[in-house]
């Protein structure tokens, strides 16, 4: 999957995870700015989902389609679920949940790339 979007999303999730260390240390909930970053990341992940499905539908490569689409769906699902789960948490562990989710997304994107690269034309 040679393209800018997956790499940009990896950088964005890692940077956002790093920015959450501030609220984590001060035991505060993330502010509006961080939530708008979540929104942007989620938007990018949705574009990645659609783009990935189009890509895998039109390729000559022998891609493991079920696994590939599974990872795409996983990347889209993680952050909203984490926000919901962290919503009622008043302690710093709510921020920890969000950081974990933001660190899982780049791992999933790297795995997506590996699945794509493992398939031969």
């Amino acid at each position, binding site marked *: 999957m040679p393209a800018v979007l997956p790499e940009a999303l990896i950088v964005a999730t890692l940077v956002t995870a790093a920015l959450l260390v501030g609220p984590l240390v001060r035991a505060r909930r993330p502010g509006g700015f961080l939530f708008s970053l979540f929104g942007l990341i989620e938007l990018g992940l949705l574009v990645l989902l659609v783009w990935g499905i189009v890509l895998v539908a039109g390729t000559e490569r022998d891609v493991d389609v079920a696994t590939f689409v599974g990872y795409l769906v996983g990347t889209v699902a993680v952050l909203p679920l984490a926000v919901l*789960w962290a919503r009622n948490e008043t302690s710093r562990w709510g921020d920890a949940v969000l950081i*974990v989710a933001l660190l899982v997304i780049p791992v999933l994107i790297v795995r997506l790339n590996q699945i794509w690269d493992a398939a031969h034309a």
Partner: protein
Amino acid sequence: MPDDLATATRSGPGRMLVAVYAIFALAATARSAVQIATRFEQAPLAYVLSAFAALVYVLATVCLAKGSAVSRRIAYAACTIEFLGVLIVGALSLLRPEWFPDATVWSVFGRGYLFIPVVLPLIGLYWLRRTAR
């Protein structure tokens, strides 16, 4: 006071514990569903064990999140089975690699997942013990 017990189980560190369990539940369920649906005959034992691991993770996630007296008991059992599973499957995957043509979540003590599978059940059991009373 069952409500307090439930809140204690899923709040604070418990909030993150459930989140990590949920990630493993999702990952293991999706993985084993794809494996069993698309290529079961290639590594039946590994894929059945993957499905079993997925079931244990789902059970532990739901029961830790619910946190009632009964569901905590089920979570205890799930974490114990999970730990034994990681140890047994981890050892077998090293001693009898020919039984596992494809990897499970628990192969080589969860090496493919940063060894989190071998630590997670211990943290789960510790957390259940700490929030008991």
